[in-house]
């Protein structure tokens, strides 16, 4: 069994949790076992944190894997998946950890499974350093659906750091094989909008954020929306900006943080949007990260994005260990094409 065990040094490249998540996702999708050492070696608290452990447990649950080293602070695990088990699952993530990152770990395999699955997840739904639920539903999933599978995510309750308590439910109808997708052009802009969401906080925060967006990005009044969330357990604030084009929708998210002025959060998010609007590549930095695994699994197709981040490059290398079909990077002037072959 260990003859085809993939050995991964978790300290390479950017050395974070994404190496683990990508490895888990592809191990379950391909059935190939792996062993990863030096997990998150480049972080201040190395080893498995609780959210990573939950990702391991979720991957274990849907694949009947045999696992060694699945404990908090463990710096080495060995993961031997059995057969994919589509169906209904529920996972809770502690420390208001990201539900979307856990979903990201099991989604690739489940959308290529034999039967539909329903995954309910509890924890954080809008976490910094993680794709927000808005981003997944508006930007990522429409592209996945164009590749064949039906995937929907219902946001049942918002969950913010530190209180958590959010809940999402993902429904997945799989396909046998992903349809290759080509995404090199954005097309004409269809709509742009900004939504400032506050939970258990003053609506004034939302107003101030939108004022900055209006000022910096000259959004029309009707494109600005304030959303007051009543059912969240703790306080939270997010600013979500959507640029909908003919072929792609991009979502940029700012996360409110205690002690950081609303104006600053809005200004930084506006900067991300400006950068996107100033280029022609249809796929932004975060969306590029998300698309790599589906494109690699499809084995064909290509998309264009801006310069690759260290995070993306690490992700590409990890993917290369599991999938024979490679993702080729073709550099262009101020963008790159990722080609699956």
């Amino acid at each position, binding site marked *: 069994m260990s003859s085809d065990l993939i050995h991964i040094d978790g300290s390479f490249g950017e050395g974070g949790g994404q190496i683990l998540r990508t490895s888990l996702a592809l191990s379950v999708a391909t059935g190939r076992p792996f062993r990863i050492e030096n997990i998150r070696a480049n972080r201040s608290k190395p080893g498995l944190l609780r959210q990573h452990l939950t990702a391991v447990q979720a991957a274990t649950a849907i694949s009947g894997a045999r696992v060694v080293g699945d404990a908090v602070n463990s710096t080495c695990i060995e993961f031997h998946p059995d057969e994919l088990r589509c169906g209904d699952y529920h996972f809770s993530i502690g420390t208001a950890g990201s539900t979307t990152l856990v979903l990201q770990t099991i989604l690739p395999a489940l959308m290529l499974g034999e039967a539909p699955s329903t995954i309910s997840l*509890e924890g954080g739904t809008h976490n910094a350093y993680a794709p927000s639920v808005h981003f997944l539903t508006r930007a990522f999933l429409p592209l996945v659906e164009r590749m064949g599978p039906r995937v929907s995510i219902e946001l049942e309750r918002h969950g913010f750091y530190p209180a*958590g308590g959010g809940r999402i439910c993902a429904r997945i109808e799989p396909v046998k094989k992903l349809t290759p997708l080509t995404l090199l052009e954005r097309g004409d802009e269809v709509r742009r909008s900004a939504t400032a969401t506050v939970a258990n906080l003053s609506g004034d925060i939302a107003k101030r954020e939108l004022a900055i967006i209006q000022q910096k990005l000259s959004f029309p009044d009707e494109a600005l929306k304030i959303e007051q969330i009543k059912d969240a357990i703790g306080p939270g604030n997010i600013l979500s900006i959507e640029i909908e084009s003919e072929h792609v929708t991009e979502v940029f998210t700012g996360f409110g943080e205690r002690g950081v002025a609303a104006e600053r959060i809005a200004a930084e998010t506006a900067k991300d949007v400006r950068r996107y609007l100033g280029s022609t590549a249809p796929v932004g930095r975060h969306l590029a990260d998300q698309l790599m695994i589906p494109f690699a699994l499809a084995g064909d197709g290509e998309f264009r994005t801006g310069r690759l981040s260290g995070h993306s490059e690490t992700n590409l290398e990890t993917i290369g260990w599991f999938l024979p079909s490679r993702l080729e990077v073709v550099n262009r002037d101020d963008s790159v094409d990722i080609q699956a072959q």
Partner: protein
Amino acid sequence: MAHESESRDRRMVVLGLLGTSLDMGKGHKRWERWRPTVSLCQHEDFLVDRLDLLCGKRWSKLADVVTEDIKSVSPETEVILHQVDFRDPWDFQEVYATLHDFVAAYPFDTDNEDYLLHITTGTHVAQICEFLLAEARYFPGKLIQTGPPRAKADGAGVLQVIDLDLSKYDRLASRFEREHEDAIASLKDGIETRNKAFNRLIEEIEHVAARTTDPILVTGPTGAGKSRLARRIFELRKHRRLVEGELVEVNCATLRGDGAMSTLFGHKKGAFTGATSDRQGLLRSANQGMLFLDEIGELGLDEQAMLLRAVEEKRFLPLGSDKESSSEFQLLAGTNRDLLTQVEKGEFREDLLARINLWTFQLPSLRDRPEDIEPNIDYELDAHAKQRGQLVRFSREARSRYVTFATSSDAYWSGNFRDLSASITRMATLAPGGRINDDVVKLEIDRLGVAWRTRAQGSHFSLLEEVLSPEKLETIDLFDRPQLELVITVCRESRSLSEAGRKLFAASRMRRKSTNDSDRVRKYLARFGLDWDALCRMDGG
């Protein structure tokens, strides 16, 4: 393949008190506050499998909020509420007793679970009690303390596990190691002993002496160092502030009759003829200190009975008094006799032996520790130098000769360290110019040989008393007696005067041209008015 997870088999369990002020928080603002009990479960790198939360009845609402919040931030954690009420959470007795009861009744499963006691919440009194429970191992785990975030990035704040096993901390461990080594060195009187069995024994004694207030029994042959060790044990305990009072020493062989009772337990004025005033007795003097009873086997049966009571109940009756006296002391007992045999003969109380036989250390004889003779020789030379203010050294060949003899099977050391000490003192005194030379050593070796042989035969100088009249004996210096005794013994073991001469002058014989050793012996004997025939006649009887 069946699903099987091989790791994470031990569960992390935290016990803690609900913090009635620190854990407090209402509305959504509570998420902006650091709440220790909730924060315990918010650490990304620390997972609590079960939290046993102790809270008073009147705080049940707060307990529910905290439980709900933990469920949200840590769905992996099972929270169990235990109703524990304090009438006064600042009352030490009440808090300790309550927590002690809780811990005593708690079903600890140390094979499968690790335990931490969260000390951040609760009154300072509760913290003290928690510390005591963990330190006394009533709580079989470590302490954990939490603190608010020092910087925004710390998120859940800080968390620290405190292991009361101080040896787990490198810097402290080396400190304790040093202290431990000092204690060992002190118990050994600074002598760098090499005998493994002896060194192990001293390690054991150090370990026990630092921890127990129970009686300690030191056995071993006379002169093996029992009283010296007793003094060192006392100093060790005094140094560690484990004992306040003094060390009171007495050799039971010196206690006889009424005087024994009175010396040990004291008497009232008029208790017997000559009791002209109250006397408090040695046991009372040893109050809060230690009492060293050497040769405890020599103690009379009545005194033994009283002593047993004093050891067990800390109370005894002074002679002639109708009021009991009390004394809290640690008993050190020494003996060179086999107390079990004495018990069989009815000379020693079985119950007293059982009571003092808890920590028994048998000091080996010097003969059993030949490797330690050399360091002890140096120690004795140093002691002599300190006492007399005069440095004495061996010449190299003299030292080598002495050590060879001292560690050989010819050296009985029947008086153990007492013999060694006396031997070194003699040589140091006789050493010309502070240098112990070969001649001094040779003489000493003869002297020791005689002393041990005669001691083995019974009383001192019996051989001389046998062959010499008391008047004649009186004229012979003590210094000369062992040598004369040796010569007589050798003569009697020989078939002829010349054989005796050959034996007595064997060493120098080879270097001399003419050898008339029998003549030298004859002349020597004549100095004391003795001759070959007389010696052999008396011996044959």
